[in-house]
């Protein structure tokens, strides 16, 4: 028997309620992500991309539908996922090292072994020298790298990335994409990335899901060819095949 997909979503519908109205963010969304696959979700703002990610992270329960992680239905935040947002969420009163261990501490997994691994990761990100600094002393790119270490330190099987690099300048963005792609490939991790940056989606993704409409639904999917997938994000951007995919993706996103 085949192993179940890392993420499987069936008929997911979610509505936000207020006293005056009900706003349906997504309607009957179904898709799955295989283990080790990197899927990018793109689409105009307000189409419910982030809602899907929050639901998979278990931040709040879906109005309708089922989410399975490795075949198991979720009922809240799972230790197998780790969530990263555009806002780095670094706690200003904790040092870089304490911030990077935050997830491990919350989950009661801060063992010497895992702490050592997190420190290695920090070193790989080129941040060892600031481990005792406070977040306010770091630049935006460094802060987001610390957030990435924090996300990876809990050793998730599935990474949920909600526009994590969109506030960064282009150099930091590509640098972080490279670091992320390498870290994920080394350990065969699964990732789901929400982004409005089409180039980013092609450069890091194996497969791209195009969303649209209000309430949001999945309109189209694009498989990124193998020759791009095997390249690191910076190199992929300058590959001839990149433009072809970009134009296809552009047309799909533009469709009303």
């Amino acid at each position: 028997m085949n192993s179940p997909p890392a993420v499987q979503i069936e008929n997911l519908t979610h509505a936000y309620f207020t006293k005056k109205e009900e706003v349906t963010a997504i309607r009957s969304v179904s898709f799955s992500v295989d283990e080790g696959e990197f899927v990018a979700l793109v689409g105009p703002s307000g189409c419910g991309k982030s809602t899907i990610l929050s639901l998979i992270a278990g931040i709040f329960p879906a109005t309708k539908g089922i989410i399975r992680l490795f075949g198991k239905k979720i009922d809240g935040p799972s230790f197998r996922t780790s969530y990263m947002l555009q806002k780095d969420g670094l706690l200003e009163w904790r040092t870089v090292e304490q911030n990077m261990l935050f997830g491990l501490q919350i989950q009661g997994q801060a063992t010497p072994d895992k702490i050592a691994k997190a420190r290695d990761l920090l070193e790989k990100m080129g941040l060892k020298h600031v481990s005792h600094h406070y977040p306010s002393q770091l630049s935006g790119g460094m802060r987001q790298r610390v957030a990435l270490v924090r996300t990876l330190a809990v050793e998730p099987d599935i990474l949920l990335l909600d526009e994590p690099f969109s506030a960064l300048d282009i150099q930091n963005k590509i640098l972080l994409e490279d670091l992320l792609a390498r870290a994920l490939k080394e350990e065969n991790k699964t990732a789901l990335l929400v982004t409005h940056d089409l180039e980013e989606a092609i450069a890091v993704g194996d497969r791209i899901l195009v969303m649209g409409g209000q309430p949001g639904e999945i309109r189209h999917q694009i498989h990124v060819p193998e020759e791009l997938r095997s390249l690191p994000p910076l190199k992929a951007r300058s590959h001839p095949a990149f433009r072809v995919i970009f134009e296809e993706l552009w047309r799909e996103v533009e469709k009303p």
Partner: protein
Amino acid sequence: MKWIKKGEASPEHAAYLRRLYIRTVWIWLIRLLLLLGLIWGWEWGANNGWIDPFLFSSPSRIWEQANQLVQSGALFHHIFMTSAETIAGFILGTASGVALATLIWSSSFLSRVLDPYLVVINSMPKVALGPLFIVTMGAGFPSILAMAIAITIIITTLVIHTSFQSVDESYLILARSFGATRAQIFRTIIFPASIPDIIAALKVNVGLSWVGVIVGEFLVSKEGLGYLIIYGFQVFNLNLVMLSLVIVAIIATIMYQLIAWVEQKWGRRHS
């Protein structure tokens, strides 16, 4: 004069440090002169008929009064009582205010239920509760303490609860995504994020505790600086009233400075 330029990086920097130092010296000098001038003017005016010393006393009369009270040993007892009441009221009022805010934060349902009660109690002039305290707790330390707590607790609760609720939402999402319990969220995020506000509340509460204690002593009229003020007023010994006011001003300033020191040490660590 090397110490004036301590830590200089260049001749220009040294000149800058020198200017800064001289400015500070001037500020302190003028402050001191202003104080001495006021005291001297008061004394001179009282002795030359410009100010009625029977109503407004004078520095030398206050000093005489202080000496008398020190010799009888009563002054330090009164100072000690008032300080003890203020410090106890301040600590208990602030701590219970923070505790109450925590309780309310822990349940948004409870928070909604208690909201109108807090508003009513907060708008109530707490001093009006004085007679009630004296009847139930007797004319003494407990009543005065109750007054100091009553004046500080509700406003602390409201301010701290607001601070708890205004913590950045993205921190909460992050913690929840790691599966944090509500208690963990409180311990690791809500409370540390609110420390600057808690320290600001401490500053306000120092002043409020003094109000509570002095009013309490007015009502109880047994001992303490508030008692000295009301007693001096009743026997028309304004020297005693002025002396008490000066002492209150000095001790209150010392307490405020202590809190300011705490704030510098912990309150604004990284912002």
